[in-house]
């Protein structure tokens, strides 16, 4: 049986805007991946624990409230602390000037508003190709 790509789509913080997260989750599913969706209001600890238990290949973090500057680096800190090999991407409303900081802490890509979902799918397929 072929190895399945597993992706965690997570909503950190209190922000309830889940439209983007759900659209991305569906698109990844339609591309044949297994998508674990956390639901709203996740703390960084919950997200990293979930990623570990679910043994995902990738984590997609979505936030539109502006809390990314605090919460995303915290997720990365825990990912590193647990020595997890996982591709982490981010989406939502994230100012251009915050992107370098996020990338520096290990986030592989930041998908802003207007990113075609196909690009997000392609990115995951390419970066996780080694699995197949």
């Amino acid at each position, binding site marked *: 049986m072929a190895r399945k790509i597993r992706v965690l789509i997570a909503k950190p913080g209190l922000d309830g805007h889940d439209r983007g997260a759900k659209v991305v989750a*569906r698109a990844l599913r339609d591309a044949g991946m297994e*998508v674990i969706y956390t639901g709203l209001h996740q703390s960084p600890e919950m997200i990293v*624990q979930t990623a*570990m*238990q679910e043994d995902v290949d990738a984590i997609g973090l979505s936030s539109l409230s502006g809390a990314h500057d605090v919460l995303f680096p915290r997720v990365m800190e825990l990912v590193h602390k647990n020595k997890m090999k996982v591709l982490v991407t981010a989406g939502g409303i994230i100012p251009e000037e915050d992107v370098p900081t996020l990338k520096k802490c290990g986030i592989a890509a930041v998908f802003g508003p207007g990113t075609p979902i196909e690009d997000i799918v392609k990115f995951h397929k390419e970066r996780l190709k080694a699995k197949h």
Partner: protein
Amino acid sequence: MNYSTLAKGTLKGDRKAAARLISVVEDEEEGYREAMKIVFCGTRGAGVLGITGAPGVGKSTLVFEIAKSFRKAGKSVGIVAVDPTSPLTGGAILGDRIRMTDLSADPGVFIRSMGSRGGTGGLSLQTSNVIRILDALGCDEIIVETVGAGQTQVDIMGMADTVVVVTMPGTGDEVQSIKAGLLEIADLYLVNKMDLPGAMNTASDLKSMLDLVDDWKGWKPPVLLASASTGRGLDQMLEFIGRHRAWISQPERFLERRSRQARKEIYDLVTMEVHRMIESKFPSVKLDAIVRDVVQGKLSPYEAAEKVAAFAIR
């Protein structure tokens, strides 16, 4: 590949190793069987509770509440949540965690979502393996959540000590669907969302359906009402789960159930092995020729099957 390190890690309580090993098993990677042999030796006999029912009846909330009560009693909990895989794309959205978020960061809980995947029909086997991994990891109680019969076809009775079939008040279709496939597997019926109109009717429909069976061999499944979201009726359900467990734990019964489960698993494994052997070893040119003969009417399907089976048995 050799996955024995992951298996040994699991036995030592390494959650990351266990999680990785589950993926290896799910992907049926070469060498997973060897790892499972190690895991099997490390199992400690965790209690296994099965929760099944149609989509939307509130299974996840129920699992969450039951898990919380196990946690309160100081037990560690493993949860396996199986969701259907799309037959078209092979993808799946696994969302059972949405209803269990408060447990995500609890070190005494390990939740794993599984897609039903289809494939070689090994889902029940793989689910059993995941249960074993969680058992070997040290979970005291394991809860398995599956979508009702007909959709993911997990043989939940073959792996759980107690099976709760969950339904909710509705148009009556629910009871029909239970009749169609879930009747034999339930140790306990739960009408969830008891605050909705028609709950009593659904419960009495179920009861009268059960009354048609003459001999329950000592355990007639009770029909209970509850509201998982408000907590009403949950204590009663937990009490009945406990009673069933006490009943099933009597030595001869326990032996009977476990023997039946083991027998079934052996059969399933053999079937899978035969499949695998035919797929990997039987020359495809030869198989194509047999298929052609059947299509052209030169050979009956029965004769064809005998030929192929003979190869596997040889």
